């Protein structure tokens, strides 16, 4: 395991806190009707997101899924335009056209979240193809869930990227459920074990709540990819605290009553706080960081509130690069 600077460790904690605080606020805003539609939070899964995104470098690419806020935040996207997007404001990162399910911030390498389960996996592979053809050292990483791991396009993409030896990492966020469906009831075999048949390493990070464990596994895959050794599959075992999506009111009866309690005890942010304390970071400094992050989220909301809704005509831009819409 590579030794990381204390600054890097602190930045990990900061990004995890950002995801947590952003999603807790977003959850409230959905319930109050401030955000239309629904959102899927990454609360509980911060270590998995940040461990992965911080193993990447500037210029690298990610694609994600419906559990979508953590990925761009992990890549360093500023919170204001993300929050404004969730509310549908003109200043949103996608001008209000995308919403929670379709965040993207190309400035930080976030090539887009996908509401269609599994659908963004080959997009990341395409970015890796581009890097490979252009001869750069860029790497691409596709985030997807345990549910998405049963979409055929994943295996096509694993095969094709294996054949073309592309610098891509397939990162399965196994939070053990797809909506109401326990992963083990719809998964034959073990996801990470599927890599072998496609000629690539398959790593299962059992402690996906440990940001360093995730970071380590992903860093190894990134190093491989950059060295021209091709793709990897990484399965990270984690847990979502909230219901599938905020306000769905499906409840979580499909999960054993005490399961969540057990996972709360392994909270990634709490665990890493303890680790940082053990590395000599003071409680005050960590408290201050938490306060700063909360302030950032407040600012993002203030930015959002101060922003106008898009003009209706904006709905008719951006379909093509060069053609005006004509009914």
């Amino acid at each position, binding site marked *: 395991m590579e030794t990381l600077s204390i600054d890097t460790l602190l930045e990990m904690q900061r990004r995890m806190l950002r995801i947590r605080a952003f999603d807790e606020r977003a959850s409230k805003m959905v319930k109050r009707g401030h955000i239309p539609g629904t959102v899927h939070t990454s609360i509980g899964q911060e270590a998995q997101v940040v461990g992965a995104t911080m193993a990447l470098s500037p210029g690298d690419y990610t694609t994600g899924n419906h559990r979508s806020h953590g990925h761009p935040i992990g890549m360093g996207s500023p919170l204001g335009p993300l929050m404004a997007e969730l509310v549908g404001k003109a200043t949103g990162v996608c001008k209000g056209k995308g919403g929670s399910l*379709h965040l993207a911030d190309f400035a930080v390498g976030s090539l887009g979240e996908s509401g269609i389960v599994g659908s963004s996996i080959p997009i990341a592979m395409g970015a890796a193809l581009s890097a490979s053809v252009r001869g750069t050292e860029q790497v691409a990483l596709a985030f997807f869930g345990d549910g998405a791991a049963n979409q055929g396009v994943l295996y096509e993409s694993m095969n094709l990227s294996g054949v073309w030896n592309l610098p891509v990492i397939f990162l399965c966020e196994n939070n053990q459920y797809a909506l109401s*469906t326990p992963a083990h009831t719809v998964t034959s075999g073990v996801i990470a074990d599927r890599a072998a048949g496609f000629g690539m390493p398959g790593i299962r990070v059992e402690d996906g709540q440990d940001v360093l464990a995730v970071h380590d596994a992903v860093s190894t895959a990134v190093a491989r990819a950059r060295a021209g050794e091709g793709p990897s599959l990484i399965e990270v075992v984690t847990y979502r605290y909230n219901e599938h999506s905020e306000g769905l009111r499906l409840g979580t009866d499909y999960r054993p009553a005490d399961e969540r309690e057990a996972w709360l005890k392994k909270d990634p942010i709490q665990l890493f706080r303890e680790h940082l304390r053990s590395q000599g970071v003071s409680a005050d400094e960590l408290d201050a960081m938490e306060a700063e992050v909360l302030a950032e989220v407040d600012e993002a909301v203030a930015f959002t509130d101060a922003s106008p809704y898009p003009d*209706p005509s904006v*709905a*008719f831009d951006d379909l093509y690069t060069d053609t005006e819409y004509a009914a």
Partner: protein
Amino acid sequence: MTVMSFLGAIGAAQREAMDADERVIIFGEDVEANVYGTTGAGKTRSDKGDFLQMYGRNRIRNTPISEESMVGAAAGAAMTGLRPIVDLSYSSFLYMAMDQFVNQVAKNRYMFGGQASMPVVFRSAMFYGLNTGAHHSDRPYPMFMNVPGLKIIAPATPTDAKGLLRSAIDSDDPVLTFEACLLWGSKEDVPEEEFWIPLGEARTAREGTDVTVVAISSSVPEAVAAAEALAASEGVSVEVIDPRTLVPLDRDAILRSVHKTGRLVVAEPAHRTCGAAAEISAHVVEEAFGVLKAPIVRVTAPDMQIPFSTALEKQMYPTRHTIEAAIRRVLDLPASAEATELASASAQ
């Protein structure tokens, strides 16, 4: 009769079909937990899990998220003695299985010279108008209408939802259902006993003599509202026809109405180009040109993807105001100031 919601009516049809024929099975993502509210006891989502308890895991099956193989599995099962209902939840997910729909479900019986029959139903809901953004808001039934061999229903009322779905399940041919989520909550008296509405018969949602509006899915209540408004304000008599089944389409009912009125507006929530409205318009101009007194006007979603923001999305689908504006156009009535304003506020 009992008051039933659209969603409850779907559940009721499924339950009755499961009771009547043990070859009927249901599979799909999250059907065991009744996440989408149609595998419960038939009225509300609170009867969660009922189907699983009533019919057991052999007949009610959760699937992985694998639409392509789900659709193929249903086709194979339908060719060998089952009558599956596949719950595909959102219509936007049908694309994942497009090859299976077009190349297997629609073609097998024909290619094999009638050796196979394909009694299978694929249900999905169109979730537009609910701020879910471009991925979840599709209304893709027109592309399936271009595929010979599929039957397609798009009910607009709880009664039609129940009666058409039951006919779909009992049909020996593959049927796709497109259920507008905006209609899920609508309620009306629905017969409690089993009943069947034949595929391919339009419903006259409102009789009239001056102009025909053919309206599809969630555009039906909008068209009826426009008709009522125009009856009140202008004394105009608008006939509203709801085809209910898109394949086979009740072309005769549409032509009969146009023969009576001489004027036609077609309203639907799909994208404009190559939509169902285009088909209906083209058919009518070819078959009833002589009786047409005015252009046929389409009221559709524009050829644009669906934006997320409420500020942007609400203008994307036909409303009573845009339909009213179209009716005024074909009747050569002055545009109502109010309707024009509301139309331009609510649609482009």
